[in-house]
């Protein structure tokens, strides 16, 4: 039983959740590697990640969960026209660049990505998994009350 402080416990829980999320994602994206690299060095490193990997492999064997990536190739002409209206898009471009930088910082491993396309792809992936993480944590904490 742990008698550590609240913050330590919270950090342990959060890192467990992050490791779980990153391992569940697998190798299809970049952000899991960043998370595992950052976190694994500190806490009981190989044990947790390895355990998670084993579980993921078991789950995949039991149930083939294939994920479809979306593939719509539609050009959003509306977005384009709106951007064009905004002072010929200069201001828009500056804003977009600023926000891309912010997004890069928020997504683990985003700084390493060079092009915007893969950054958006990683962001999509990461957001989906964050949804799952929040949902699971909320259910657990509700169950614990």
């Amino acid at each position, binding site marked *: 039983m742990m008698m550590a402080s609240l913050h330590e416990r919270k950090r342990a829980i959060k890192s467990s959740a992050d490791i779980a999320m990153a391992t569940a994602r697998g190798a299809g994206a970049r952000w899991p590697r960043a998370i595992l690299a950052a976190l694994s060095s500190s806490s009981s490193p190989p044990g*947790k990640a390895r355990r998670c990997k084993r579980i993921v492999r078991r789950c995949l064997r039991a149930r083939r969960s294939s994920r479809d990536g979306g593939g719509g190739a539609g050009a959003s002409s509306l977005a384009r026209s709106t951007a064009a209206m905004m002072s010929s898009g200069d201001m*828009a471009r500056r804003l977009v660049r600023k926000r891309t930088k912010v997004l890069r910082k928020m997504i683990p491993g985003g700084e390493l990505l060079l092009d915007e396309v893969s950054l958006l792809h990683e962001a999509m992936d990461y957001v989906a998994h964050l949804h799952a993480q929040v949902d699971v944590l909320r259910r657990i904490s509700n169950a614990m009350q």
Partner: protein
Amino acid sequence: MRHPSPPQQELPTTGGEIQAALIPAGAAGPAAPASSAAGRGGGGSGGSFTALLGLPTSQAMELLLPRATGAPPPPPAPASAPAPAPAPTFPSDPHLVDRAARFSAFASASPSPPSPPPPPAPPAGKRKPDPADRASKGKSAKKGKTAEEKPAGGDGEDEKPAYVHVRARRGQATDSHSLAERARREKINARMELLKELVPGCSKVSGTALVLDEIINHVQSLQRQVEYLSMRLAAVNPRVDFGGLDSFLTTECGRIAGLNCKNGIDLEQVTWSEMGVHGARHLMQLQQQFWHGDLAHPHQAASQWEKRVDGHLPVFSSSSPSLFGYDLTSSGKIACNSITPS
């Protein structure tokens, strides 16, 4: 003018002749499909392209008769009349017909990374089926999606390398850089559309900057929620050991994320019904620790727990006490197949 059913029979045979005619341009052949894919992908739907095919085919049929008699195709005139004159570019049309099926596949797939079309492609490719294109230009000109490339100063060559049409947008440059740029832009916009679906409340927002703003806010809020929830779990009971949490969370995160990506974002529909035995066991372990450590816990829930364990109930009813009564709209049904109380 013949619009026959026999095109099916005749085209294959003439394809051989035409390919023979195009042998000198065979080097450009392999490059053509790649750039054509890029062009198609950049153009989005291949609908206008197939509309193009109708005319060239029939006009190609016209061409077949003189070709069958062995008459060599007359040298091309860059600005040709809309009359079905044997234009120089016709020999390549059957190639396009062959590629039409492939294009429909390309059109629906996400645009592939464009290999910059070979430099000679734009100048030579501009003299493509002019009559057909002129006709279709009237159709699609206003759509803004595809536009005829202006034949930039005819080259006056006799032979047409079989380059692919590169569809330029109206009023936009057609060199390889801007083409690649445009394809990249389209990819980015496609991803933005997907992200907009993922982030709630983003579908009305238009404009890349605003959408990015929303995404950033959403990611921040999600990360803050994770912090808050983990704080809450940490505060629940100091004596509960959450060390085994990660294995349980792995199962759940993977499952829920998989469901999310498949069905779109509808977290409320996710139920516990598919929870694996392993995950369920962990949850039960956690809760057992919790109960043993907390004397103030209502005995009602404890007895419920024992009842369930003894009975090996497959489904847990949602009318159970608050311990298992999740507040989420999805009533928590736990399928515990073989729970061994540890």
